[in-house]
């Protein structure tokens, strides 16, 4: 009897203390989601099967999604996410797409009818124009998300690969396969 009472009172005491602590140490928002979102490429393309980069970030933090679902981010993003969250870096999930070279949208001005449907679709407002006015893409702001292709009724938008000149060139990685498990021969 005493045993039961003792344990119950101990449990109650601890419970009260914890409840009080929970109130005292509450936090607002979720800074981890911000940190994850900061690593995503912000194309808002939806290839990860979420409605944008932030919902994907929230899903990652909630463990509803894996870190290898972002094709525009590619391997560097997967690696950065793996580093941040101490999870294993896996190759990009082929179901979500594949890594492609960077592209920008280009509107064929002869065909454009000025319907503004692409302007409404662009998640970063990279298309300039008005009703019955010429539409054009601001190449520097275009993230290559492909979301403007579908709404266009006359199919006048093309995705063009960004020409990488000297500024975007980088040294190739030296070949490491030669040294893997090779004895000095």
């Amino acid at each position: 009897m005493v045993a039961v009472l003792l344990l119950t009172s101990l449990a109650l005491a601890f419970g009260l203390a914890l409840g009080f602590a929970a109130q005292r140490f509450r936090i607002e928002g979720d800074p981890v989601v911000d940190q994850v979102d900061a690593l995503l490429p912000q194309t808002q393309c939806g290839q990860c099967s979420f409605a944008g980069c932030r919902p994907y970030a929230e899903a990652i933090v909630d463990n509803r999604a894996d870190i290898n679902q972002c094709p525009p981010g590619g391997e560097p993003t997967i690696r950065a996410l793996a580093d941040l969250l101490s999870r294993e870096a896996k190759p990009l999930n082929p179901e979500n797409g594949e890594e492609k070279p960077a592209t920008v949208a280009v509107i064929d001005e002869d065909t454009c009818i000025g319907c503004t449907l692409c302007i409404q679709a662009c998640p970063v407002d990279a298309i300039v124009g008005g009703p019955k006015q010429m539409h054009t893409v601001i190449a520097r702001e275009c993230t290559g998300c492909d979301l403007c292709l579908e709404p266009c009724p006359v199919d006048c938008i093309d995705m063009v690969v960004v020409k990488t000149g000297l500024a975007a060139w980088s040294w190739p990685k030296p070949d490491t396969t030669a040294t893997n498990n090779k004895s000095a021969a």
Partner: protein
Amino acid sequence: MIKESPLAKSFHGGLKLNGHKLESTGGTLRSAPVPARLVLPLNQHAGRAAVPLVSAGDRVLGYQEIARPDGEISCALHAPTSATVLGVQRLPMPHPSGLMGDCLVLEPDGKNEFGNFLPAIDPDSLDLPTLLKRVSDAGIAGLGGAAFPTATKLAVAAATTGITLVINGAECEPYITCDDMLMREQSDQILLGAKIILDTLGAQRALVAIERDKLKALESMSAAIERLGDPRFQLEKIFTIYPAGGERQLIQVLSGKEVPAGKLPIDIGYLCQNVATLVAIYRAVKDGQPLVSRITTVTGSGIAEPGNYLAMLGTPLETLAESAGGYTPGATRLIMGGPMMGIALPSDEVPVVKATNCVLVLQEDEVRASGDQMPCIRCGECEQICPAQLQPQELYWHIRGNDLAGADELNLSACIECGCCDFVCPSHIPLSQYYRFAKSQVRLLDARRVQSDIARQRFEDRKERLDAEAARRKERLEEKRKKRASRENTPKAIKGEIDAILARTRGKVADSDEGGETR
């Protein structure tokens, strides 16, 4: 005043290398012939490419500006001699990527006519803004190999008072002797160029740094200092060790102070200028001559008559090699730069640019096959030799494991790519290639991150705008609904409202009739 640099002030690591200097210092400075074509890449300096000012068919005189700088960090280009402009063509660049780049191609007309585009200025009556403008107009970039626009470098330095000018005649990399020859033959001009900088930037003193085994250069420069009689100049004989000629290492040798990682030498009060750059500055001021040529060492066992050649910018390397007696049988590797930091070029059709301090041709037995790598045995030799006091082994493991963030934390950006670690590695691991790869990757990833931050901002702004519009619409609808609910529902009240609307519309139509505007 001649002062011996004490050995105690030195930098960590470094290598004593076989200099191979005597091959190319035998004769005097020779002039390379004017080639049939001059190919001038629009981007042969750090920063943005120059913008062409001429087009195909134009005839230009020597020294005429043919491309203007684009932005703050950029350089102008000038015609080395009178020629017809063939246009802008995409041609192979002397760049490790092997990529093509836009080049202005000129066909010299053989008349060698020069124009007088920049008036001569008296060096003694020169003020800072005039100097900066002249250096910029003359298209001068650092001729030690980095090709950083000199006007920008001087402008940054001018903001600090009481600086020390370091005249870099160290030339520590094997095979390269162009600065040595310049110091032997044009010592006065080097000092006069330095004097211009001392006077206009208000520098306290100038340290002339020369390696102690360059005896003829030391003789020539010390005699020139005597002749000049300016007490601010001090000759410093430094120990011959690679890479003492690197800006940061040289400053450490001369002053004992280390330039902090991530900062520039000017932040601790030192401005370093290559001897050839100083001559270019002097000529630009005194004679109004822009940068159109440079001294290039053509050497190596793959060249028949090694030596130093004054070549016009844009001279194809094959022409230069021909004037040096051509290639010897067995010549395999063509390198722009020295054996430690130079880049291998895929063909000799690329031109001489502002950064071409040396053309090195090596034979088969001097080149190590790149597949000769063995596993890292963690011997630590690389760490002992690194002049920047980094941990090459740790960097190697991190880069190999794709952990660029970890490599960055180990101060990868402080690596000067000198190649010392490469040289001493017993397993022949191409370490500096790993660091070049990682540095360029980090740069690319940072650029991507900046882009994605901007995109996120735009996305969130758009979301805000759409939400605000939706909220406003909702408000308006609420107001209308309230108005409708509050008004009387008698037929009289409704008729009154309809009459008001009709009157308003009629009024509008009447206005538009008068105004004559049709819709």
